[in-house]
């Protein structure tokens, strides 16, 4: 079973040299810590920076330099600042090769719900709806089940949608799953996790091949 860092580490394997990548808040942010050797990528933050670097050293923080999570950050060599319209032109125009974000629910046809729980305070979708509607390559990073032990991989999302038919891959604490043809397809087991455990934790239609290799981290 993977912890949050493990999920991030597995997703980092999807990074290819030359990618521009947008990382959501939470587990996705951790992906930046596991960039494979020899792979150059640049991180975009939708509030207006390309070439986002690590958090600043204590005392170096600049109120005018933050990421989409409102955290103080630094800029890498070659970074660029731009306005919000240009930022979402990059996103909507599919210039960002990979988007990684968290989710509350994902459905077997790739729908995603991650912005609103009816009856609870609604904080808004921020840039999530633009990201999921536009990106060609979206990976969801999340726990396989919620705090009540219920599957987050469903036949249909029960929560209000963020986007329709957009998620291509999900990496959870239990498995790597691809979404095609209206079904979840099991690609890999997390270390020490059995296929039965994954089947039990997946509510939507799950296609299980004969051989399910264990993830290599």
């Amino acid at each position, binding site marked *: 079973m993977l912890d949050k860092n493990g999920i991030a580490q597995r997703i980092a394997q999807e990074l290819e040299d030359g990618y521009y990548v947008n990382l959501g808040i939470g587990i996705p942010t951790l992906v930046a810590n596991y960039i494979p050797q020899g792979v150059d990528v640049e991180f975009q933050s939708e509030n207006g920076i390309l070439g986002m670097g690590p958090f600043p050293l*204590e005392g170096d*923080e600049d109120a*005018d330099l933050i*990421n989409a999570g*409102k955290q103080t950050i630094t800029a890498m060599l070659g970074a660029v*600042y731009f*306005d919000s319209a240009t930022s979402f032109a990059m996103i909507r125009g599919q210039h960002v090769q990979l988007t990684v974000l968290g989710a509350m629910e994902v459905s077997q046809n790739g729908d995603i719900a991650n912005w609103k729980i009816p009856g609870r305070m609604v904080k*808004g979708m921020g840039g999530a709806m*633009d990201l999921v509607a*536009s990106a060609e390559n979206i990976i969801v990073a999340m726990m396989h089940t919620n705090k009540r032990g219920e599957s987050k991989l469903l036949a249909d999302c029960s929560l209000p949608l963020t986007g329709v038919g957009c998620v291509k891959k999900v990496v959870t604490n239990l498995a790597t799953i691809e979404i095609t043809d209206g079904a979840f397809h099991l690609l890999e087991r997390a270390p020490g996790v059995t296929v039965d455990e994954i089947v039990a934790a997946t509510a939507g239609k799950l296609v299980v091949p004969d051989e399910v290799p264990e993830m290599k981290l």
Partner: protein
Amino acid sequence: MALNKVVANVEEACAGIQSGMTLMLGGFGLCGIPENSIAQLVKMGVNNLTCISNNAGVDDFGLGLLLQGRQIKKMISSYVGENDEFERQMLSGELEVDLIPQGSLAERCRAGGAGIPAFFTPAGYGTEVGEGKEVREFNGKPHILETALTADYAIVKAWKGDTAGNLIFKATARNFNPMMAMAGKITIAEVEELVPVGELDPNQIHTPGIFVQRIFQGERYEKRIEQRTVRPRA
């Protein structure tokens, strides 16, 4: 000769803003917000405002200050609720909230300033955001029609500005400010440093002065950090 957009102070800059008006306010979180003008709006006591701003500040800073005084009737934003008073007013029904995807918000402001009354975007299709909106397929992908946003006054904050209203923003404090500057019937720019015309490189202006009607240098900037995250020094 270059036009002169300078007003004496924040009072003169905000003159004419009235209760019931629609305002755009630049900034993302607390980054790049027009601090001086917000303080002046509190002082003026205008209310029933519709505020278009990506966020709604925190309890004691940014637009949170206007919420404290119940000056806002409606917020048009992409992400809100970083403050308790906002949540209280929203849940009690005192405050209307219209949530818009961040990219659509930015593009709708740009469209308002650019004379584009409507455009198609894939963002929000199949979600609550798309309800009641026209859907059309382009290249096999469904899109929804979104309309332009404009405001009676747009209030933006820049790093440097010249007397002709030309603006330069700093780092990620740029965010929504340039588009909102375009979309205000009257646009007020407060700047950290107001310089004589000719001091800014004409090749390096982010917002041309044509979009700015009034400019002034803010008296004081707190520039509060919302999420201070650092690495320890070795």
